């Protein structure tokens, strides 16, 4: 007579190594891959911090994404320790994982012992549908989407670069989008600033951007700053944001932004455009170089024309803005290799990308110092600042 289901489970549990929650708690983060094999609804109600979610029903198809190294220590858990024992048996006997264990008593015992549980932000059914293509990506998934929904991203400028960046960040579900821009929509903007529309000419850009963003994704909270960024307001405005997207059109503000973000430790995704050329880099304070390490001083005004004076291909800020939006999503979700310490050049006519190294300057006047030493009076200032601004008008 075939054994009962209970008997099979009992026999399999005898063949699988079982570990106590105390041991799991001790080894969390030490190269151990902790896998929650429960169903999605159970995971959403709370899971062990640092665990990855691979439902038992998808074990064979998804485990390699969570634990690519079959020699790594893998500990599985479920609600009570039965499903994880069965899954551990499969990993060991069928998939060839050599160092697998199942946690005794599952998350129920874990909680009884008073260990910490993360309760993830639960997406509504509508959000699950809206962000479904993100949820399918193991690198983003529900956790990454929750990070996006919790993220606060500040866009400096709702112009050429800010307009397309804002659209994609809104679509991606970035929870709070701050927008700093004191301009009104002008007919000449519409060749590239795709967040604005013809019927909104003359209205403030922050209002126009808000209208488009809310039409695209009502999840997004838009915070409007219809002001010009200067030394008197920058710290107050940028404080509390997770990432800043720099698309400003002048050097004094770029240096000011750099110094303020180094002071507060906020990463900046920076792009600039002119004609058919774009530049892009990510400045993450103290993890890599800052803007002043790359460009210690700005060029003289005659070598620093604006897009208004020199022209720009309308698509170009779209291309560069998309790259900025991509870097923002990577920084927020913590995936991939952000463009830190690298400068990406795009030349549209030749359709070429060039990557250059950017080194941290050990003598950088700003980022080589303790952030608390940076005082208001020196923020945004560079040699010949007054002359530069006078020449630039």
């Amino acid at each position, binding site marked *: 007579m075939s054994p009962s289901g209970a008997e099979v489970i009992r026999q399999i549990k005898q063949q699988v190594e079982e570990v106590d929650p105390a041991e799991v708690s001790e080894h969390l983060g030490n190269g151990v891959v902790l896998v929650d094999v429960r169903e999605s609804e159970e995971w959403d109600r709370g899971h062990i911090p640092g665990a990855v979610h691979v439902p038992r029903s998808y074990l064979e198809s998804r485990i390699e994404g969570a634990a690519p190294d079959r020699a790594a220590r893998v500990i599985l858990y479920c609600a009570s320790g039965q499903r994880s024992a069965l899954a551990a048996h499969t990993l060991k006997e069928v998939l060839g994982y050599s160092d697998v264990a199942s946690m005794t008593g599952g998350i129920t015992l874990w909680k009884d012992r008073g260990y910490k549980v993360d309760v993830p932000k639960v997406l509504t059914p509508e959000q699950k549908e809206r962000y479904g293509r993100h949820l399918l990506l193991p690198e983003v998934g529900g956790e990454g989407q929750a990070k996006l929904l919790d993220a606060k991203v500040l866009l400096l400028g709702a112009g050429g670069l800010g307009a397309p960046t804002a659209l994609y960040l809104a679509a991606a579900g970035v929870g709070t989008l701050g927008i700093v821009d004191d301009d009104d929509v002008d007919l000449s903007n519409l060749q590239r600033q795709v967040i604005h529309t013809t019927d909104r000419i003359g209205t403030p850009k922050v209002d126009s951007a808000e209208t488009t963003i809310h039409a695209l994704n009502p999840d997004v909270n838009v915070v409007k700053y219809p002001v010009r960024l200067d030394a008197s307001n920058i710290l107050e405005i940028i404080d509390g944001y997770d990432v800043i997207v720099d698309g400003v059109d002048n050097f004094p503000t770029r240096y000011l932004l750099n110094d303020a973000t180094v002071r507060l430790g906020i990463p900046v995704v920076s792009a600039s*455009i002119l004609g058919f050329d774009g530049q892009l880099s990510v400045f993450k304070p103290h993890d890599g170089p800052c803007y002043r390490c790359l460009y210690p001083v*700005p*060029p003289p005004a005659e070598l*620093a024309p604006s897009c208004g004076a020199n022209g720009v291909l309308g698509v170009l800020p779209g291309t560069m803005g998309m790259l900025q939006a991509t870097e923002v999503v990577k920084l927020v979700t913590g995936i991939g290799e952000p463009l830190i310490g690298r400068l990406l050049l795009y030349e549209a006519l030749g359709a070429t990308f060039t990557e250059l190294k950017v080194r941290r300057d050990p003598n950088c006047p700003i980022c080589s110092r303790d952030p608390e030493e940076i005082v208001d009076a020196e923020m945004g200032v560079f040699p010949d600042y007054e002359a530069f601004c006078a020449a630039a008008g």
Partner: protein
Amino acid sequence: MPVIKIPVVLRPSVGGEKEVHADGSDVGSVLRSLAERHPDLRSQLFGPDGSLNRYVNVYLNDEDVRVLDGLDTAVGENDVLNVLPAMAGG
């Protein structure tokens, strides 16, 4: 002969070219020989004392010459120099 990539703002000084060639065995001699052919470039690249202007970054292939040997950095026949001032357009 090494290739020098010219940024948008300096192209009017070299007849609109995106890329030019110039002879020289190090960064300084390549850029000086370029500036001899295109005199408008001289003050854009070099200060009165002959040093590279601080607002111009020069990369040998993908590395900033400031972290190499500056203008004395050796340049090979097949190397690419990128001349790059900051841009602020947004």
